């Protein structure tokens, strides 16, 4: 099964669901993507019979994040503020936030295969997965603060859970990008692999999990990841 949308390719093959961010060269997320991703997650990913989901970017990069100019315009024109409080949010934004969290709560492994740039809302999508396999040389971060914003799609919460509150606060306020090695040290990614191999390892990990258990859950994911590392990397 394969569905090609304007910005996403969703495909199921040999028991694995693939969600490809498809806006080369840098997979910059325009508003069309942010609407399509919610639809793809809700209509396909959440109902899949696949044994795992892999999220990746077409070409060299996972995603260089949202198109900030377009995003600002879109949010401004669809947000209503009364007496200093937001009374109406852009629907696609709340849908996007909800769908990212639903992806995170799936009972099958959700793995992001990361290469190149993985930043802003791209990194927030990767943080919505259970496991992040990252290629050496990648650059990751939440630079929204450098654009006058803050991470808007669960990034603050998820980064705090992965890297600890104090490091998450510092990274988010500074808006720094860090390389894959530092990201591994901080716990932001789970497995560091050679360039151009993250997708392959993501497939292998899902196969490994399927072979070795019937009780996969987010809570016990490291049990399988540790076994996988021992099998392939020791």
């Amino acid at each position, binding site marked *: 099964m394969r569905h090609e949308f304007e910005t996403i390719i969703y495909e199921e093959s040999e028991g694995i669901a693939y969600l490809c961010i498809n806006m080369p060269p840098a997979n910059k997320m325009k508003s069309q993507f942010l609407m399509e991703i919610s639809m793809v997650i809700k209509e396909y990913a959440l109902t899949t019979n696949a044994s795992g989901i892999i999220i990746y970017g077409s070409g060299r990069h996972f995603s260089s994040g949202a198109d900030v100019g377009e995003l600002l315009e879109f949010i401004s024109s669809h*947000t209503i503020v009364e007496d200093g409080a937001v009374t109406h949010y852009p629907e696609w*934004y709340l849908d996007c936030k909800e769908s990212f969290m639903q992806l995170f709560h799936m009972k099958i492994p959700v793995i992001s295969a990361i290469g190149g740039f993985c930043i802003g809302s791209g990194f927030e999508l990767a943080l919505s997965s259970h496991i992040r396999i990252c290629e050496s040389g990648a650059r990751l971060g939440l630079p929204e*603060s450098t654009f006058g*914003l803050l991470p808007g799609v669960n990034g*603050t919460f998820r980064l705090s859970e992965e890297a600890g*509150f*104090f490091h998450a*606060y510092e990274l988010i306020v500074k808006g720094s990008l860090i390389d894959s090695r530092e990201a591994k040290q901080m716990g932001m990614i789970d497995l560091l692999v050679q360039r151009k191999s993250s997708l392959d390892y993501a497939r292998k990990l899902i196969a490994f999990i399927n072979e070795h258990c019937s009780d996969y859950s987010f809570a016990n994911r490291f049990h399988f990841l540790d076994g996988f590392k021992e099998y392939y990397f020791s």
Partner: protein
Amino acid sequence: MDKHLLICQIKTVRDLAPLVSGTTEIGERNTIVLHLKKDCFNAMEDTEFEQVKRILFDPNIIAILIIDCEFSMSLYEKMYVFDLCFVSNGGALQFDPKHENGLRFLHLLFSPKTSLGKEARILDYQELQNYGFANAFLRKESLIEDLESEIRSLTMDRTREQLYGIKSCMNAYKDCCLFGKTLITDPEPSCFCQLALLKTEEDKK
């Protein structure tokens, strides 16, 4: 010294009294630093700690802890009220793997995936840094300069509204993760959209 910075030297629990009683003159300062020279947080009564928490949790304030003493795992159970933690030459942790709650808070605040093993031992400031149990190291001989440099590097060009929004979100999520509370109202959408509107207005000028 930066006029926005308030530094409190804490050697005894009495030094916390102005914060506890609310008589600390915060004024225009938006960054409060507690320079801990003795591990005396545990000597505070719960009500006193709640008062300190109320001040440090204020989203208008950046709250920084500098650990410059040997301290026990119990400090981690109270350290969450800060936004950042620096360590200086005197900082050293009495690591006790049996202190379950301290260990849980340590992981949630700094390094959820780091394993420290089962051996009780002292971790000095270099080891604390190597394990990622501090945001930065401040040299004793140039503490104030290092501190100001770190704060400048952190907040450069960040607006008051951004810092308020980021900390509001952090505080809400700390309550969930550290204390198991249900997140009833996620502050992120409101903070994000309000900042987007402010930025759009700013760009139009």
